[in-house]
Every structure is written in structure tokens, then in C-alpha cells.
């Protein structure tokens, strides 16, 4: 859902790339088009202002580094600010989901507008917790929508059918039918204790924040069940109303996190920024499909990068793993390790091109690159003919030249062109492609304090090495 936003943003920032220094007028012009892009992506007006103000101040105040262009620097600032917006104050980083829960069972209360997707989410979240090994129950306290409880029961049954092992830990609590919500809620809590549940997920009726009686009802419900987490469930396609909804719910109950449903739509994902900004609480999960498994833990780093079009390094690594399967295990392992260390020379490129028959690491790599770079390099996935030329050029180089491409001066290039039956221009094009790839890889590694590790979901590099072994089938 974030691709469109990222393309629009890049269009705005591109004006700055290729300039020697950041001039205020240039920056303002770039920021104006970024503002339009953000608004078109449904980012709330308030969040847009916060973001642009901080980017402006930081970008203008920053010393221009020699190694990167001002445009790149602004992109970097943007990335950091979007991540800050998504993560909140680093000093007040929220504990992981349910980490601070004290009581047994832990109670998760789901609230939101009508049709936000609370009931489907209840089943997904239950499966998620059951897979963590927790005996998890769900109960519907939606007394107004017809067949709401029946829907939850059936959704849970689907989750159970999907995963036999975790399914054994899933419990549907039939609610006591009572016109009074308070009595039903208390009975559900008692039942949860009798069942010795470790977690209890409570689904509630959808409500608009303008309905005072329903908001009062929610307030008293929260008092009765004293939840460890209150998740505000909202449609990822929500527009500016995200702010009013987040504030409206936040005034009545203590929201501890946000879940965005239908994040698999082609929406532009602005709601993630708006909700975070307006609620002050982290986005915890994304609903990404109709299956009970279609739940993703929200990763702000990954999203921030996608928004800015840095490509998605994880998708890239996945692509790499697919190509790795087709390669000699040992060689692939070496490439993978080098890749994780951020090393990538012409020898690697040569190897990848050789392995490339309809999708090797390089292609994956190129797919993972920002749109702008991809365009700049021009039709990155090479045709068979181009591939042949590229291989010819690379094989006309010495191993040393491939290891240290910087030694390639004009006379060497002429020799290589002659040897491969190509032209110096083609040699240069190949080197350009290599440079673009390498630049972005480096930037990906350097940018952000968490760097590559953060991007890969916080796994230490060593553990990743093991994962890589697993990804490659034994011969």
C-alpha cells in the first residue's frame, strides 16, 4: 500500500538531487510537491505539517557532507523524520505488545468504528497469540450488530482449521446473553479464568465517536475488563478522519496501539502516519488479507523506507534467497554473507549474471532499488542480449579488475571493449549500473542507527547467517 506514496515523494525530492548545495528556494519547492504527495496519500494535515517543519529545519541547518549530494541528505532526513513519526519519541519507546501485561489472563480490548474489521482481527490476533504458545480466548461483546458473535465463532473456527497445533490453544467463549453489557462482560472474564486462559481478546461493537451513549458504554466496559492493551482498529484506507477518530477514542479509553486493516489494498498508507501522530500510540499490526493468518507485525523501519522508495531490502533478500536456491550452495552462502556485509564488487555481479536465468540476485537487487535509481539505470532487468554483452564485458576483465573496478582507466576500458566485442560506452554503462547498485547498498547500510540489522527485523547478523543456510536446500 505504500508504493504509490513513495513514487510521489521521490518525484518531489528528485528536484533536489543533482544540486550542489541546498538552497532555501529549491528546498521549499521540493517540500511543496512533497506536501501534495503526502496529502494525496491521506497523511493527515497535522502530520504533514509536523513532518515538513522538522525536515525543513534539519535540512537547512545541516552541513553538506562531501560524500553525498544534498538531495541524498534531504532524503536521509526525510527517512529519519518519517521513522521518528512512526516510532514516536525514542526515549519513550513503547514496550512490545503485551510485554507489560500483569494479570492472567492478559486482556486485549478491540475498539473502533463500524466496519473497521475488529471481528476478523480478533480471530487473526488470537491465532497470532496462540502461535506464541498462549492459550487464547475470544469473546464478542458486540450486542448490537446481528450475528456478530456468530461471525467471531466462525472466524475462530477457520483459524483453528488452518493451524492444528496452535488451534488447540484457541478457545471461543460463548457469551452469556444478557441485555446488560456489564453483566455479559463480567461473566466472560469469569469464564476466561475458569478456562485458565493466558490471553483474552474482547471484540466490541463498532461505534462512531459522536455517539455519546456508545462512548460511555465503552468507557464503563474498559473499567470492568481493565485491559492490558486497548487496540484501536482502523481501515488503512482512512482519510483525514483518522485524526478525529483517533482523538475521539483516545479521549474515552486509553488507547495503547493501533491496528490498520485492509493494508493489502492499493491505498497509500498515509493512515499509518496520521494514526500514529494523532493517537500518540504505535501501530502494532497490519491486516493484510482475508485469511486468519493475514496479520503482519508492523515494522516502522521497513515502512519508512518503502514510503521513501528505498526499496524494500527484505524483499530484496528474499529475492536473493530464491536465486540462491539455484546456485551452488557454497557459493551462494559466500555471496549471501558478502551481501550482508554490504560487499558487492564486479566479481559478485559477474557471478550473479552468470546465475541469472529469469531472476537472480541481481534482478532481485534491482527490484529492491528505489524507483528513481532503477529508472536512472534504465530498464534494469537486462534482456538476454544485454545479459550476453554484460557477461562478455565482465569476462574480458581480469579478476583483479573485477575486484577493484576503480583501476579501470580509459586504456583498460578500450581493451575490455575490444576483447568483448562491445564499445567503451557499453563498458561504461555496465560500470554505471554497478555503481548505482553499490551506492544504494552502501546508503542502505549506513543510513539509520539500526542499519542493516534493524532492516532485517532486528536479527543479529550471525543468526541471519544460519537462516541463510536453511534457505539453501541441501544437495
Amino acid at each position, binding site marked *: 500500500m505504500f508504493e504509490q506514496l513513495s513514487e510521489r515523494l521521490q518525484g518531489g525530492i528528485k528536484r533536489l538531487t543533482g544540486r550542489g548545495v541546498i538552497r532555501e528556494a529549491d528546498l521549499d519547492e521540493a517540500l511543496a510537491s512533497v506536501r501534495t504527495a503526502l496529502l494525496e496519500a*491521506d497523511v493527515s494535515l497535522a502530520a504533514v505539517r509536523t513532518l515538513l517543519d522538522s525536515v525543513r529545519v534539519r535540512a537547512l541547518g545541516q552541513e553538506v557532507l562531501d560524500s553525498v549530494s544534498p538531495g541524498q541528505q534531504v532524503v536521509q532526513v526525510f527517512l529519519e523524520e518519517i521513522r521518528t513519526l512512526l516510532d514516536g519519541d525514542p526515549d519513550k519507546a513503547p514496550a512490545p505488545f503485551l510485554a507489560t501485561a500483569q494479570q492472567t489472563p492478559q486482556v486485549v480490548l478491540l475498539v473502533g468504528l*463500524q466496519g473497521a474489521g475488529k471481528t476478523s482481527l480478533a480471530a487473526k490476533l488470537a491465532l497470532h497469540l496462540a502461535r506464541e504458545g498462549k492459550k487464547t480466548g475470544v469473546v464478542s461483546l458486540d450486542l448490537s*450488530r*446481528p450475528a456478530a458473535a*456468530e461471525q467471531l465463532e466462525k472466524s475462530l473456527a477457520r483459524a483453528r482449521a488452518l493451524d492444528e497445533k496452535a488451534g488447540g490453544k484457541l478457545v471461543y467463549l460463548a457469551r452469556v446473553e444478557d441485555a446488560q453489557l456489564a453483566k455479559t462482560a463480567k461473566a466472560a472474564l469469569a469464564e476466561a479464568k475458569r478456562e485458565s486462559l493466558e490471553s483474552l481478546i474482547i471484540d466490541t461493537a463498532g461505534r462512531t465517536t*459522536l455517539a455519546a451513549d456508545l462512548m460511555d458504554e465503552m468507557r464503563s466496559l474498559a473499567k470492568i475488563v481493565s485491559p492490558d492493551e486497548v487496540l484501536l482498529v482502523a481501515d488503512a484506507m482512512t482519510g483525514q*478522519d483518522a485524526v478525529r477518530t483517533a482523538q475521539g477514542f483516545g479521549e474515552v479509553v486509553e488507547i495503547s496501539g493501533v491496528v490498520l486493516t485492509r493494508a*493489502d*489494498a492499493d*491505498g497509500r498508507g498515509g493512515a499509518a502516519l496520521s494514526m500514529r501522530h494523532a493517537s500518540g500510540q504505535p501501530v502494532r499490526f497490519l491486516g493484510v488479507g482475508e485469511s486468519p493468518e493475514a496479520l503482519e507485525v508492523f515494522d516502522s523501519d521497513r515502512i519508512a523506507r518503502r514510503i521513501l522508495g528505498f526499496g524494500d531490502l527484505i524483499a530484496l533478500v528474499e529475492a536473493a534467497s530464491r536465486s540462491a536456491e539455484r546456485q551452488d550452495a557454497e557459493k551462494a552462502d559466500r555471496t549471501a554473507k558478502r551481501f550482508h556485509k554490504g560487499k558487492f564488487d564486479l566479481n559478485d555481479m559477474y557471478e550473479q549474471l552468470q546465475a541469472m536465468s529469469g531472476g537472480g540476485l541481481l534482478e532481485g537487487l534491482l527490484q529492491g532499488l528505489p524507483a528513481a535509481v532503477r529508472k536512472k539505470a534504465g530498464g534494469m532487468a537486462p534482456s538476454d542480449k544485454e545479459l550476453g554483452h554484460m557477461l562478455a564485458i565482465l569476462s574480458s576483465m581480469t579478476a583483479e579488475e573485477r575486484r577493484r573496478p576503480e583501476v579501470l582507466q580509459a586504456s583498460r576500458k578500450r581493451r575490455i571493449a575490444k576483447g568483448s566485442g562491445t564499445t567503451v560506452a557499453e563498458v561504461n554503462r555496465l560500470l554505471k549500473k554497478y555503481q548505482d547498485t553499490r551506492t544504494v547498498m552502501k546508503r542502505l547500510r549506513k543510513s539509520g542507527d539500526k542499519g542493516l540489522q534493524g532492516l532485517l527485523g532486528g536479527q543479529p547478523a550471525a543468526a541471519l547467517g544460519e537462516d541463510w543456510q536453511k534457505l539453501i536446500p541441501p544437495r
Partner: protein
Amino acid sequence: MKDKKPFALWRTALAASAKRFASPPDESLEELEERLLLADLGPSLAADLVAAVAADKKQKTAKETPRLLLLAAALLERLHPATAALPPPRQAPQGTPLALLLIGANGSGKTTTTAKLAQAYQAQGASVLIVACDTFRAAASGQLEAWARRLGVGFRAAPEAADPAALAFVGMESAVREGYEVVLFDSAGRLDNEAPLMDELAKIKRAIVKAANQAPASQHLEEKDFLTTLLVLDATLGAAAVAQATRFSQAIGVSGLVVTKLDGTALGGAVVRAVAATGLPIVAVGLGESAEDLHPFAAGAFVAALLGLEGELLRRFQEQLSLYEQA
């Protein structure tokens, strides 16, 4: 209505009324833009409208008119062609009942709208059959069945995971056979980027048309003769409203829009963008959870709420609106 002339009249009338109303300080163009953005009109339509107001303000007749009212007029101008009524029920003796198919994204409010439409047609004295073609969502038919029981209208459903097109066929067939005047087809929610699910909707439509033509008295009926397809749009949507309206109408054809959840904090401005992009009319709005909460779309009230008109400005707007509607 599509004629621009009445709006010229409107502007003159607005100017003439200036002396009788105390106006708050005029808003700047930036403030107008902010109102529009906060209401999900989107940056490009907001810019268009603000530019239109700026141009209007330069006209002699509009000099004294507050910009906010000029904006309200400009918005109304864009929305007026987009109003339409629900089709009337077909008379049973003619053979084929009026069929309405409800489509839209998950959670947009199709099922509740189906129930509300059943109530609305029933209140007009029509006999109504509901066919629960959402065979996917857990307990979707249970939800509709409860509504049908409550309202006392006919109801057909199929087991979960059954082919919705097959159910639509059977539903239409029995509606014809049993002499219903209105038949409502609910459908499963789907996102507009799911091509196979769009095809499924087209198939449901074909099934309904085919079944209608089974009746001996009604040969060669075409879709437009009796079938109305309503896209249900959630008022809280942002840019996705435009994508949904465009894609659903391209993929399967849509006759009109129903805007739901306008009783909440959402102002529904994205619907104006959807209307601008597709030219589809808004046939009804949902303003609550009970069966009676479906209303005809009132462009004036919608605009007033969207711009947050209040006090003197609102009274002035309303006065001009009624004058305009008489004209």
C-alpha cells in the same frame, strides 16, 4: 440542474442578501483550502475549488459575499448533477422485479445498507426479497437473516463457501416466480485490486440477468431494464474512494453510490472526488445503525456539514438554497 445559469442567479442573490446578515471576518484562501483538505477533498480538487473562489471573488456581484459561501456554491455546483433518487419498485404484474445489487469493499456497510433498503422499499408498500450473496464472510448470512426476520421480508441464502452467482440465479428465479417487486442482492466485500473477485461480481450480474430472462413473460431483458448496481462507499475513506469508484465501475459497471457512516466524524469529502472522477450519482446516504437510517442524498446539507457552516453563514446558505431550489 446542470445548467450553469441558476448558479449565476445564486451568486447575485448571495450578494443581495449581504446587507441583511452580519458576516464574520472573511476567510483567507489558505483557510478555505484547509477546510477542504480536512474534509478529504484532496490537494488537487481543493486547489481547483480555491482557485474558482478566488476568481469568483473578483466578480463585481460577489465582492461582498464571504469566500466560504462562494466555496459552498462552487461545491454545490459540482454535486448537484450527482444527485439521483432510488429507482421505484417494479410492479409485480409486469413479471420482473426491480433488482438491486450491492457491492463494495469489506466493512463498507453493504449488509446493513441492504437491510435499510429493504425497509425503505417495504415502507413504500413493495414486497421485498433479500438474497444473501455474501457466502464468504463468516456469518454474513446470519446477520442478514436476523434483519430479514426483524423486518418481515423474504430471505434466501446458501451454505458458506457456495457459489454466489449460483445463489444469485436461484434468488432471482424465485423472486420472479413468487412475484416479489424488489429483490436485493448483498455481496461479499472485496478490495478493488482483486481482479478475480471483480470477475466474480460480473458473473453474479450475468446470473441475475439470465435468471430474469427465464420467465416466459420477460424475454430479452437487459441489465439496464431492471438491475441497479450500487457501490457502497464508506465516508471515512480517503483517496481510496476514488480508486474504488473508478475500478468498480470500470470492472463491472455501477449505477450509483451509497455513502455510509456519514453520522460519524467523517465528512465524506472523498466522495466528491469519486463523483468528479466517475460522474456517478449519489442515491442514498447512511446515517446510523437502525433500518430507518437511510436517507436521500441532500447536496445542500452535505456541503454545509462538509464546510462546517454555522451561525449566520449557515442561515444565509440555507435561505439561498431554498430560494435556489424554488427557482
